[in-house]
């Protein structure tokens, strides 16, 4: 299955392009979805891995207090 890598955001300034809707009617942040869709599946897995590691670091830091 082909995966799109077309960036849907203005990456230089990190903001959604003017014509783009930012949130769906049910409150989902569409900019994050477009950013994830601009990545390959391998890169998406890296993003998840980094998120989990960051959260784990926060949890560990809190446990040491």
């Amino acid at each position: 299955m082909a995966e799109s890598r077309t960036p849907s955001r203005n990456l230089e300034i990190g903001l959604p392009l003017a014509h783009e809707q930012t949130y769906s009617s049910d409150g989902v942040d569409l900019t994050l979805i477009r950013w994830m869709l601009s990545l390959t599946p391998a890169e998406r897995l890296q993003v998840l891995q980094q998120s989990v590691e960051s959260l784990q670091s926060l949890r560990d830091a809190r446990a040491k207090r």
Partner: protein
Amino acid sequence: MPEPSANYLAILKILHQHKVKFIIVGGVCAVLHGAPMATFDLDVVHSRDRDNLTRLSAALEVLGALYRVPGRHEMEPSLSHLASERHQLLMTRFGPLDLLGTIGKGRDYDQLLQETVELEIGPALKVRVSTLESLIKTKEETGQEKDRAALPLLRRVLEEKAKA
């Protein structure tokens, strides 16, 4: 038992090295399709044919997999457990791994296979994942609150993918 951080890639590499037939479902599947969300375990539906269970059991040994549920702590999953339709909730040295005999309305590996795609997640590492449509269908079938809560996000990912 200390809880290791999840390392999805490490678990998937070991399953792949042992030629285990499995389908990634759940949160990791959603992320691979582009859903911006975090998840702390890897959910897979495995083939329950005899040869695959033997390969899976060997992979689990390398992963140091033990049950993480009360009453079964420190127990290794047996072949008969792995052959069951039920969910085996395990802790490995690379984090939590849930082996699901069936999902949704009792769909198993063979029934799910036609609703999957292969995605490349590393050098020479392709994994089979549920399609986003199938993942949404499963979460609708399950009807649990946590699954229903994920539906708006997954539906918007499907819409955005269609536009791309």
